[in-house]
């Protein structure tokens, strides 16, 4: 209150200017009002949309509906010239009765503006459109804006049956894969189905071993490591000479990096679409390769490349909490430059009658009960890891601590 006395001075001083104030205020107000008037287009959009209202209507139906199955995304990676685009075009033209959207991720890991091509059904034409990614505010939003953008794309059109995501030549598929591996709980309208890597048989070995600075590996390694399917393309071009042995060598090389991958040979990317679409390599709900994993012997590679697959089997129930600790150490606090790209496994969890499945991509993992152990099942822990600088002995020794059998034997 005391302060107000001196303020009388400015009062008298600026009162000449205060008539100016009311004059200014009305100017500012209509001014502000005019801006939005111009912008009414944008807003009218939603008003006009009333009758045909594509997006709003959709979200209502999405709300109350019977659970619609999420649309699968196949991510296609491979070096420039390997035949990625040929593969995409082949899939689009092939009569498969599916409506497929192609999203081109031309900026690699920087998920900027995307170009999308949409195949309007069987004999439909290709439509191209730009997808404007909601830029920015990750403000405590759980779904990455890239996933939201794809979901928006899905809403804008009538439904697609499938999405192909074509990445740039030199992209490491890991970051995008982990973004797309959305928690089931979020019930996203899209799901990562699988990663398909196209390889040029004639150039692969050279690309793989291109010199790199110490400690890092070429993208070719990473693209193989993350792949669920490798399309070994242009096999016709290596066959003539000593073709057969070259292909064998390439296959051995690929298998040593990724012991779980399925290898498909092709010329000009002509492949059976069943090998590429709907592989259901991610997520438990969809996983079909569980039984396969149980039965298939995964061969560890003998020679010691930087990126490789290791696997182990261990009898006896394991403690879930300890397995979680083991994974936390392995994925979040790795020792000795170890980097894990991908993990799959079957676990015999102590105290549960259900088989559990383990999946990991980079630092993300989940352990989920799948089905009841059946009579005749061999209860076992079987884990496969793909990564860099993996130390098998350490990994197994750490896992051994998860076994509960020893503890049980002390029980009276």
């Amino acid at each position, binding site marked *: 209150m005391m302060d107000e006395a001196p303020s009388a001075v400015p009062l008298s001083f600026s009162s000449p200017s205060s008539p100016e104030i009311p004059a200014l205020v009305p100017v500012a107000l209509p001014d502000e009002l005019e801006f939005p008037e111009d912008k009414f287009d944008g807003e009218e959009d939603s008003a006009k949309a009333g009758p045909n209202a594509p997006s709003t209507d959709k979200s209502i139906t999405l709300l109350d509906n019977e659970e619609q199955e999420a649309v699968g995304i196949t991510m296609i990676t491979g070096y420039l010239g390997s035949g990625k685009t040929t593969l995409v075009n082949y899939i689009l033209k092939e009569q498969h009765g599916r409506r497929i959207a192609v999203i081109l991720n031309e900026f690699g890991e920087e998920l900027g503006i995307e170009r999308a091509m949409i195949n309007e059904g069987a004999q439909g034409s290709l439509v191209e459109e730009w997808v404007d990614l909601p830029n920015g505010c990750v403000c405590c939003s759980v779904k990455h804006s890239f996933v939201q953008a794809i979901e928006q794309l899905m809403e804008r059109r009538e439904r697609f049956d499938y999405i192909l995501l074509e990445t740039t030549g030199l992209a490491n598929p890991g970051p995008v894969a982990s973004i797309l591996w959305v928690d*089931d709980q979020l019930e996203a309208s899209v799901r990562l189905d699988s990663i398909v890597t196209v390889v040029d048989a004639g150039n692969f070995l050279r690309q793989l071993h291109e010199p790199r600075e110490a400690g890092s590996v070429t993208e070719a390694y990473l693209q193989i490591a993350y792949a669920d399917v490798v399309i070994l393309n242009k096999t016709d071009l290596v066959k003539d000479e000593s073709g057969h042995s070259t292909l064998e060598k390439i296959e051995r090389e690929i298998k040593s990096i990724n012991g779980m991958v399925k290898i498909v040979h092709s010329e000009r990317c002509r492949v059976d679409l069943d090998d590429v679409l709907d592989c259901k390599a991610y997520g438990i709900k969809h996983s079909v390769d569980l039984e396969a994993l149980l039965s298939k012997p995964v061969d560890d590679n003998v020679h010691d490349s930087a990126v490789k697959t290791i696997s182990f089997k261990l009898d006896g129930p394991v403690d879930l909490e300890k397995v979680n600790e083991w994974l936390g150490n392995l994925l979040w606090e790795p020792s000795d430059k170890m980097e894990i790209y991908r993990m799959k496994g079957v676990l015999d969890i102590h105290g549960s009658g259900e088989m559990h499945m383990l999946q990991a991509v980079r630092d993300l993992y989940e352990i989920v009960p799948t089905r009841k152990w059946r009579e005749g099942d061999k209860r076992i822990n079987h884990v496969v890891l793909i990564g860099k600088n993996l130390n098998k002995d350490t990994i197994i020794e750490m896992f051994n601590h998860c076994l509960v059998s020893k503890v049980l034997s002390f029980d009276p």
Partner: protein
Amino acid sequence: MGCAEQESGNGTTDGKKEQMDSGSAAGDAVLACVRCSKLARLQCPKCLELKLPRANGAFCSQDCFKAAWGSHKVVHAESKRAVIRADNPQDQIAEALSRGWLYCLQKGQHRSGRAPNFDWTGDLRPYPISARRFVPENIPRPEWASNGNASAEQYSELQNSVEIKTPEQIQRMREVCKIARDVLDAAARAVKPGVTTDELDEIVHEATIAAGAYPSPLNYHFFPKSCCTSVNEVICHGIPDARRLEDGDIVNVDVTVYYKGYHGDLNETYFVGKVDEASQLLVQNTYECLEKAIAIVKPGVRYREVGEVISRHASLAGLSVVRSYSGHGIGELFHCAPNIPHYSRNKAVGVMKAGQTFTIEPMINAGVWRDRMWPDGWTSVTADGKRTAQFEHTLLVTETGCEVLTARIPTSPPVFPWLS
């Protein structure tokens, strides 16, 4: 406000420059010149006439006043707001529009005089919002204050790895979180039927700048106001507007302040007048969800466990957990790693370690968990229009457990019956 508590004063090296902080917040004896930050001895007569907060109209000299007039006078136009008192919604909206208030659109980047169309999920509707509030030039501001852009935050390495804070950083966190608590308490005291959420925003804004802090939400990715006010079916990020709170409403006020380079973030949900029993249970359960989540915080606990605890407690009461928004790391950045979902079976990365600071902020719904976004691009509402509540604290992991940096203090208003 904030005159009482100064407990945490032990063991810090700074404090020389800040002697007057708590004082300036309390009895506005010391004000800085809006233009040059020197001690102010004069004030703008127009501001006085309009009864505007003195901090925005304080000057050291006539020269500074003259020089600042061009930018300063905007404050008067803004203040045309005063208080909206019309009785029914139509008149309220008309009155707000006549004062130049507009509807917010496109994530805060556009305004319109016409109400947007939407298939509203509940009874609540957006109202026009007032003009942007002024922050004195002497208050240090985050990167987005001028252009809405938070790209340094977005592309920071701290989005990928969780920082272990140094004792100095932790002290800053304590300081800013205490301010945030005081600011929220000021808003809580004002909650009652008839008050507009814009008035709550004004209280938050004034209390924040009086403490020498910047209201972090203001212009963050173009958010137009200084706090979020989320009424009834609004899950979070509601924009303070001309709507008057009604008897029986519940309203969440979410405050974040930025002080000496650090952010402190908290929110609470309040009852407006007499609230039905279902809403009381919802709000209390949400409070307990946060309490139970905080109880497990200590080094070695996986971040994914937080969602399990919250989900269990909410579903026991037949309530659902919002999945689209999560807790977050906080410090020099408003939002950073870790990401802490509140739902079960999430794949959150990492294990808690001493020295990490983050928020937990469960949003619990009476009906379905799903959310929808209003045309303003911010307001998140329940898909079924049923009510939703939220509580939030900023936490520090300590060697033995955790410290609730934004904890209630003895002066916090006793607004939650289950605490008394």
